[in-house]
């Protein structure tokens, strides 16, 4: 009985830490791509995610891609907004700096728009991965 009580008190802080990390890692990973991995000491994975998702988003902006806002009435605009939203902090910073507001006038600008949407969608996957690491489902 005493052993089980001791074991219980030893496990509880670890479980609490895991559950805290299961909330913090996805949240910070959404704000900064790869940060959810970095705070769990997955340095290489985190840096690769940061570089890959960050580069896709920044390249999309530099290709004069369009960034979608929440108030787009068209269903495709709403889907574009959901994709863009996945980029988290980069999306918020771009909106704050009035970036990505141009019309999609040529093919490369359309590619840039897709780059930013895909960067956001990839970040959603990275966030889910950070969560799986936090709950111990993945190494």
């Amino acid at each position, binding site marked *: 009985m005493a052993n089980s009580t001791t074991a219980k008190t030893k496990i509880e802080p670890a479980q609490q830490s895991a559950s805290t990390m299961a909330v913090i890692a996805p949240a910070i990973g959404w704000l900064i791509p790869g940060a959810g991995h970095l705070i769990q000491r997955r340095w290489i994975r985190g840096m690769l995610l940061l570089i890959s998702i960050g580069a896709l988003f920044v390249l999309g902006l530099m290709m004069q891609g369009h960034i979608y806002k929440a108030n787009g009435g068209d269903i495709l605009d709403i889907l574009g907004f959901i994709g863009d939203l996945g980029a988290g902090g980069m999306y918020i910073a771009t909106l704050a700096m009035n970036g990505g507001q141009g019309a999609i006038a040529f093919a490369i600008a359309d590619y840039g728009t897709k780059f930013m949407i895909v960067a956001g969608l*990839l970040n959603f996957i990275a966030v889910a991965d950070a969560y799986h690491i936090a709950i111990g489902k993945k190494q």
Partner: protein
Amino acid sequence: MTVQLTHFSAAFVFALFASIVFGITHRETSRDMIRYGLYCFVMFLGGALAAGWAMWLVRR
């Protein structure tokens, strides 16, 4: 500052970065991540090239 990528370089950059993320997030071990990332890269770029040639054939 703007960037003007060609169609191929845009496809290459997209395939490269998307494959890295897919590799990291879809596999468990480092070896499997690299292998799956390479597989995705080849499929992305190969698919784009195959679609390009298919469109060229349709146009003729």
